[in-house]
């Protein structure tokens, strides 16, 4: 089956073209967009780990190594589109326009972290694995019913393919031919479980056959392959042709979360050979004359300032108020809940 689903690549590990189909669509704007966003989210991600170590953030799920997959795909989205992320997809949501302060807040156990900026259709991160796939199908179905050209994208991991919801989400999408992209980041592991123990299939892309849905397998560390193949799938969906399953083969460089110790289960050298997606883009930029040292310095500095500001805002964010746990359960609070709230607030007052 691997033969039926060869990994699509546009540039190789040394940053040279291996496929020039899209060469004329690669311009400075695109290259810089990709680079800028990848640098930005990597800096965000490393900062998060640091904050967690310092006790300024809770358990965090890092995505280093997956930047090309997340940025390359999220740059394709247009304003009316929908994004259904997991806990590891802040790279994608930030690229699409999520608020950075709120992304940090999420990892401090704050519901504010789930509220997207106005007009941005970004769903709260899915924590129960694979549950977001049917949601994306439903949201896409709604767009189809309204006759728009908007598309929904659901992010999910290799482990998520084992859940029933993966299957049911894809089946509904194919039956109702709705504009949804199932974007799988195959990062080799589901916590400690390697993909060979997760599934018997050689690829995830081939699971599309079960739904007679297009399935493609791409090098998830090649930002151009990710961008152009995702764009093709979006265009296909916008034109009313229905869903696509994309398998982006990538690598989780770090731990599953800051609470995890990969040395327990992952051979030390495994993954060392997978070239860093950012480095690969840098090589490409140098190879093809896109390297602009001054611009790079500038965006790096800007990014650091942006992130420091976001962290500051996160830490200065108004403390959570107790009312919150009662106020968003129903549109109108039932009498018994109102009583619980009242009596608890009174109790706090007495203390």
């Amino acid at each position, binding site marked *: 089956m691997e033969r039926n689903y060869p990994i699509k690549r546009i540039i190789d590990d040394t940053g040279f073209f291996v496929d020039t189909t899209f060469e004329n669509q690669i311009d400075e704007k695109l290259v810089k967009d990709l680079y800028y966003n990848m640098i930005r989210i990597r800096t965000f991600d490393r900062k998060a780990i640091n904050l967690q170590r310092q006790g300024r953030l809770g358990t965090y799920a890092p995505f280093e190594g997956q930047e090309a997959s997340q940025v390359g795909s999220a740059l394709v989205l247009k304003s009316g589109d*929908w994004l259904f992320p997991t806990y590891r997809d802040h790279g994608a949501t930030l690229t699409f326009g999520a608020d950075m302060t709120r992304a940090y807040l999420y990892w401090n156990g704050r*519901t*504010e972290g*789930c*509220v*997207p900026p106005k007009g941005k*259709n970004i*769903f*709260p991160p899915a*924590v*129960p694995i694979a*549950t977001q*796939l*049917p*949601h*994306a*199908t*439903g*949201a*896409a*179905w*709604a*767009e189809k*019913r*309204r006759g728009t050209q908007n598309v*929904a994208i659901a992010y999910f991991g290799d482990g998520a393919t084992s859940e*029933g*919801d993966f299957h*049911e*989400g894809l*089946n*509904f999408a194919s*039956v109702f031919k709705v504009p949804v992209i199932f974007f799988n980041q195959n990062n080799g592991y589901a916590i400690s479980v390697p993909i060979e123990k997760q599934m018997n299939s050689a690829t995830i892309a081939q699971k599309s056959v079960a739904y007679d849905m297009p399935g493609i397998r791409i090098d998830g560390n090649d930002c151009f392959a990710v961008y152009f193949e995702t764009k093709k799938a979006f265009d296909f969906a916008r034109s009313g042709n229905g869903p696509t399953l994309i398998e982006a083969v990538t690598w989780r460089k770090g731990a599953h979360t800051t609470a995890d110790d990969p040395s327990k289960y992952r051979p030390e050298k495994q993954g060392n050979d997978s070239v860093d997606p950012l480095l690969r883009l840098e090589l490409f930029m140098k190879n093809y004359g896109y390297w602009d040292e001054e611009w790079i310095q500038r965006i790096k500095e800007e990014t650091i300032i942006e992130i420091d500001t976001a962290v500051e805002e996160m830490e200065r964010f108004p403390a959570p108020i107790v009312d*919150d746990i009662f106020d*968003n*359960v*129903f*549109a*109108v609070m*039932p*009498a*018994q*809940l109102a009583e619980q709230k009242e009596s608890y607030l009174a109790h706090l007052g007495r203390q």
Partner: protein
Amino acid sequence: MTTQLKGPNHKIVATKQMTMIQAINDGMKLMLEEDDRIIILGEDIGKNGGVFRATEGLQEVFGEDRVVDTPLSEAGIIGTSIGLAVNGFRPVAEIQFLGFIYPAYEQIMTHVSRIRMRSRSHFTVPMVIRAPYGAGIRAPEIHSDSTEALFTHMPGIKVVCASNPYDAKGLLIAAMEDPDPVLVLETMKNYRSKREEVPVGKYTVEIGKGKIVKEGTDVTIIAWGAMVTVVEKAVEQAESKGISCEIIDLRTLYPIDRDIIAKSVQKTTRAVIVHEAHHTGGLGNDIISIINDTAFLYLRAPVERVTGFDVPVPFYALENHYLPTPARIVEGIEKVVHF
């Protein structure tokens, strides 16, 4: 046949003889006409009109886009309904039998009930889940569960359950207009058991309010769904023995109408709760707690429960032994009265 009847404010409303299933069908039809956001989906609900004919004729009138036959996949039905709901639609999902809702339990438990909270009301899921429930119609195994308590221990979702055609239509319309998700339990046993005059137009029965079906002074009997009918039979017998019974039809199971229970038990000083769900973990316990909280000093006897036993709902050859009967209820009534 349409007749005329005085409405709540003495205005004349047209009514029609309807069974519960017809009233439910009528409610969905009205709302499909009125609100373009309503979309009905489930297994066999389109061409077939539902295995109980609840959606009969709706696909013909409103088309395959609004009355949708889905694949056989409850998590898929509820999961995609969530996506539809957060994106502007108002899905009304049918689960063919409550006993088959469990594959969707994760979607209901971690998303339907929590999205409003998780997103600080940015995303909401105004959706309805309809599910026939209950034993006593000689259905094959698993088809007869009465597991409402699994959904009342899940803050963020409301649960209603009508015992008659009028309430069924009014509660269903209220559910379809509610800004939050509502699970609508439909008692199969009463689907066609009686006809009554039901207003032909739109009306709602307020979610969260029980109803005094019959006033009385010696004991309060609390029930819902199919059990209301059984209680009525029991009460006839009890009254013939000189015991005056007050019957409460709870109608909403979450949030429960605490006041109606409190007031009634404070008056009668005795209570019997009847439900077909298992004893342990059943809603009867919640009601005892409400009585404990609101009528402790009034109570003259321990509250009595007449319920399904702590056994899986039996295959139908024995299901009638599982279900509360008028005789068991009468014993319960006598027990509290002669305590």
